[in-house]
């Protein structure tokens, strides 16, 4: 049984906390969920009974704890009760009836659990009142309709309910999603005409036709309001954004006076987050969220949209920088937040946010976090979602100590220890999401393998060096049997099937087809040959496989002449009658997935989006680019795919890439490698962490030197025997 503690740590009676733990242990051997005032089925606050148990294959049991000493009914109507302290409260007897009716209403939407002919629900719903401090004679005066017990008989009551509800057809994931309101997130259903069809388009449609259900991990973390900071770690496609949106909506519903900020870095996420919050909140409360206390904001702000930076400046009467003023800074975002932080510190502002949710935390500079810290009230409910693997040069996760700044005594505002342990309900303060919904397993492993250069001829580019980091991104270490790896260790790791929730992969398995076909590789002798062939392939997918153009993304890893390459591709597609767009080159940068158009993109533009069909072209750049950035770009590009990914490249060194991909495919679903030396890794990390333009500049200078003045280079090397010997040594080729 999974315990969803919700706001148990936030507002609950002492009895509820103790009884919660007790009930949880009564249910421990059963499958299902036990929620504290969860699910709320659109009710608010005290209209929700204390505990709702959804026991798979048995039924639903509603348990309401009456902690007060009740003296009797407040009037003749039985609608209100009066407590010993003289307070009038609504009758709990009526509360649980109303609540039961709301659950029934929701379940009636599903023909599998509701028989429309007989009007009967196939799920058994039980309800009981637990009086903790009310004597028997006073309980009798309440004229209760529902069963009632004292706190000592809870366990036996639960046992008898389970015994007698054996025939309940099913409380299952579907019914649960109905009850908890997350079915509003289900992707639009498309009628699937022929389930036997093997056309790619039909397979993809089938993969879209599923009910969104939170998995256990997601439910646990999203349905809880933590009483302090929390970090949510997970790869792209693990549901971080949905979880943060749910947390925001839930907290807003719980107490609409709380001031909440939901902040993110990608402009295009504005609508997505707004939608998620609105859908859930509206379904649950039948009213619209109050956007004046629940602020959804881009970190900076965009065309006519409020941004966090601008709104803070405005609030404190500071003059904000315009993008034009700072666009030449190395990191404009860091620049403006460093400036803002300095000014805020001197103003000593009163914090005003009760909760802050940060999505894409890996994209934000350090001072941003410190600003958030300054503006968040105690107990600093700051929840940040962090993508473990967004970029290669950030393999090491930034710890809270390094993010939130220091206090006056020089101690970290949020020390690392604050993420140790759990919140009430056993929910980790440092929460890891290991299930990946977006990418098929082979796709993710190809991306990781290429990104890290695990099978790179000249040696691994960068690697996670401990057991915990690998499990944080959904792998299981088989060898070696120790927590931190050392040079020369033979490492064997596996991506277990259970962590892959990609539906297309499952459908292929059902059909006994090889899921490895979701990634393919093709090499060509010239870029024209490659582009012509990709254009043909796209045409075939659209004309014979029922794929619609907007589901297709073409991402080039080429870093030069991208505009011309896209122009050529667009022309070739146009010859074949396929329409395409090139955002950022011809169309404006925020155009994406317009109906009827194939998307031609750079990895940078593709970031944060996903598609059913992804072509990664000019993949040789992953090998030839000395800065390793193209490996990162390859990783980003491949992980856009939730369906089929076609990788291709051209030129002299394409065979090296083919070899790496073949190796990944052979070892799938495992990686086997020898752990590299610390020195090797260090040297490559230096390159990884250099500013992009610095590398480009050096590279240009070297190229120029080789072509114009090779003598100088030769002479310099002659006079530097150390450098020369480093070059000659094989594993030092970088």
């Amino acid at each position, binding site marked *: 049984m999974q315990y969803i503690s919700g706001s148990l740590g936030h507002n609950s009676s002492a009895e509820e906390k103790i009884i919660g733990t007790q009930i949880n242990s009564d249910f421990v051997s059963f499958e299902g969920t036990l929620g504290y005032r969860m699910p709320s089925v659109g009710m608010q606050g005290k209209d929700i009974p204390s505990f709702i148990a959804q026991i798979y294959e048995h039924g639903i049991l509603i348990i309401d704890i009456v902690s007060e000493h009740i003296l009797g009914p407040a009037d003749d109507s039985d609608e209100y009760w009066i407590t010993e302290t003289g307070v009038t409260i609504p009758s709990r007897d009526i509360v649980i009836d109303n609540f039961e009716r709301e659950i029934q209403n929701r379940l009636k939407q599903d023909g599998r659990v509701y028989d429309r002919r007989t009007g009967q629900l196939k799920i058994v719903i039980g309800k009981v009142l637990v009086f903790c401090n009310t004597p028997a004679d006073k309980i009798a005066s309440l004229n209760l309709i529902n069963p009632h017990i004292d706190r000592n008989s809870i366990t036996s009551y639960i046992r008898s309910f389970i015994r007698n509800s054996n025939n309940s057809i099913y409380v299952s994931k579907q019914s649960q999603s109905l009850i908890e309101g997350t079915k509003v997130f289900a992707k639009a259903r498309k009628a699937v005409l022929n389930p036997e069809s093997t056309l790619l388009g039909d397979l993809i449609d089938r993969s879209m036709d599923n009910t969104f259900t939170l998995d256990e991990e997601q439910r646990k973390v999203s349905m809880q309001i933590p009483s302090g900071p929390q970090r949510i770690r997970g790869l792209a496609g693990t549901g971080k954004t949905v979880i943060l949106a749910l947390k925001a909506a839930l907290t807003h519903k719980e107490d609409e006076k709380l001031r909440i900020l939901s902040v993110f870095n990608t402009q295009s996420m504005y609508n997505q987050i707004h939608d998620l919050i609105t859908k859930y909140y509206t379904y649950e409360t039948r009213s619209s969220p109050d956007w004046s206390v629940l602020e959804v904001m881009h970190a900076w702000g965009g065309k006519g949209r409020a941004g966090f930076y601008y709104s803070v400046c405005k609030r404190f009467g500071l003059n904000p920088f315009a993008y*034009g003023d700072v*666009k030449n800074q190395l990191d404009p975002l860091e620049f403006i937040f460093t400036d803002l932080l300095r000014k805020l510190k001197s103003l000593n502002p009163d914090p005003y946010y009760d909760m802050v949710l940060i999505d894409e935390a890996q994209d934000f500079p350090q001072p941003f976090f410190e600003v958030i810290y300054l503006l968040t009230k105690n107990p600093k409910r700051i929840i940040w979602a962090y993508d473990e693997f967004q970029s290669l040069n950030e393999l090491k996760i930034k710890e809270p100590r390094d993010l939130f700044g220091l206090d006056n005594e020089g101690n970290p505002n949020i020390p690392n220890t604050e993420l140790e342990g759990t919140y009430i309900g056993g929910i980790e303060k440092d929460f890891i999401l290991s299930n990946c919904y977006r990418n098929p397993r082979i796709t993710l492993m190809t991306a990781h393998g290429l990104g890290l250069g695990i099978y790179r001829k000249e040696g691994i580019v960068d690697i996670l060096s401990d057991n915990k980091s690998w499990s944080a991104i959904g792998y299981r270490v088989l060898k070696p049997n120790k927590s931190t790896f050392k040079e020369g260790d033979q490492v064997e790791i596996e991506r277990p099937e259970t962590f892959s929730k990609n539906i297309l992969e499952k459908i292929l398995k059902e059909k006994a087809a090889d899921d490895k076909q979701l990634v393919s590789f093709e090499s060509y002798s010239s870029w024209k040959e490659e582009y012509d062939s990709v254009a043909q392939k796209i045409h075939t997918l659209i004309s014979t496989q029922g794929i619609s153009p907007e589901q297709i993304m073409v991402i080039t890893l080429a870093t030069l002449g991208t505009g011309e390459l896209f*122009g050529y591709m667009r*022309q070739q597609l146009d010859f074949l009658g396929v*329409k*395409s767009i090139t955002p950022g080159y*011809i169309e*404006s940068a925020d155009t994406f997935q317009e109906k009827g158009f194939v998307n031609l993109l750079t990895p940078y533009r593709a970031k944060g989006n996903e598609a059913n069909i992804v072509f990664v072209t000019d993949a040789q750049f992953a090998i030839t680019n000395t800065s390793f950035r193209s490996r990162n770009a390859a990783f980003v590009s491949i992980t856009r795919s939730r369906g089929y990914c076609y990788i291709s490249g051209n030129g002299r060194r394409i065979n090296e890439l083919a070899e790496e991909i073949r190796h990944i495919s052979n070892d799938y679903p495992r990686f086997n490698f020898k752990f590299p030396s610390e020195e090797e890794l260090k040297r490559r990390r230096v390159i990884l962490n250099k500013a992009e333009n610095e590398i480009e500049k050096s590279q240009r200078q070297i190229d120029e030197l080789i072509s114009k003045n090779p003598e100088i280079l030769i002479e310099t090397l002659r006079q530097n025997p150390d450098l020369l010997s480093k070059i000659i040594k094989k594993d030092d080729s970088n």
Partner: protein
Amino acid sequence: MIPINNVFENLDATYKAFKDFIIDRNYSEQNNEICWPSYKSGISKQVYSKQYEDLIANRQFTFLLTDRSAVQIYYSYDNTGLKKIRLAYYPAPKTINIEREDIDTYYGETFSEALEAHYMLLHDLMGQGISVSNTTHVRFDYDRDVTSHNTNHLQIDGIQELRIPFKHIILPFHFVDFIIQNTYSDEYFKINKSPNIVYLLASSNKNLTDVDIGHDYYSIFMSM
């Protein structure tokens, strides 16, 4: 007067002849009109770069050329025949090399209040990272029913007062051929002797229609 079907055939043949210069085509014949789908009439009174952006965003073009310039080809007919033509060329905006400080100087030097406001606006725009573009669009317009000015003329962007009258009503091929010839001259002279293009030019010329424009400025300009 040339029938609509022949204009459409001419347009199709034009695409085939110049397809190596075109990365996107967008035209059809419907309801007595040859135009791009989702045709919107009217010319936006925006700075040129914004006009161009809007045109791309709303796919208001017939052809998009490899240099990102756009071509509009619009012919409209009614029961009595050809009613309207719009043949426009929108070059990809080229930013001019100018610093924000230069604008400050111009602002300080001008004696005109209107231009002061203009420079101030430019200064603001550049502050927002919008680059200043000097380019503009050019078009041939034909409107059978117009009486206030010449029915057939060349017009440059928003200059309403100076419409240059034209004697001939031209075909899609004339217009595109003229553009390619001038903007891709090296490549163009490799193909202009091909039988395909020679034939198209001859057949298009045969279908030129004359309009009465009084004074034939075009001929005068051409003979200067």
